[in-house]
């Protein structure tokens, strides 16, 4: 089932998000979601619930280091989401395009 997207290509209604949709979106971008991807997606969803947005890269890394693994760095994130880790993680997490643009 295809879900409605907003003008930026992100899910229009985040309550409709599900893992199958996320896999399909990622696959369309050439990404096979792994355990690490899912951990990051879950962390981003939680941060969004707490703060109302996905944070910019450096703040995201700080939070991920505290919440997931102290060795996480930007190279790790770029390996998972090569185009733009913050933007892509938000997209597959069913969240809007982040408000900031660094």
């Amino acid at each position: 089932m295809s879900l409605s997207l907003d003008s930026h290509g992100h899910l229009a209604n985040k309550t409709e998000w599900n893992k199958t949709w996320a896999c399909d979106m990622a696959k369309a971008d050439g990404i096979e979601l792994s355990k690490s991807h899912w951990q990051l997606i879950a962390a981003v969803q939680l941060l969004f619930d707490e703060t109302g947005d996905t944070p910019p890269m450096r703040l995201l890394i700080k939070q991920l280091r505290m919440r997931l693994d102290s060795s996480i760095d930007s190279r790790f994130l770029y390996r998972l989401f090569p185009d733009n880790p913050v933007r892509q993680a938000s997209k597959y997490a069913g969240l809007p395009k982040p408000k900031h643009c660094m």
Partner: protein
Amino acid sequence: MSDMKYAIQVHPNANWHTSQQQARQLCDALLAEGAVIVAVFFYGQATQITALDVNHDWHGWDSDRSPLLVCSTLHEQQNNATEHHSMFTITGMSSWMQLSEQADQLVIIP
């Protein structure tokens, strides 16, 4: 002669045309004093600068020496028209933050 380095942020709280005009004249005066301007950053309403015609107040500015940066997020939010000027760089916050860190003083023109 002053060798102070300034980062200028044009962040209007009233008529933005006046803000950017005043910023240009102040920047010229600072440069005449021997100061260095690391960058001029157009923020808030001032991101509309790119919609002005070619006879804007920054004509003749050496943007290679002191880049004119326009915040891309607010530029997009304000639905600004097509850019007329290659001298303005529409960019994310990083460029501004990195350049402003090189300055001795940040001056915000309201």
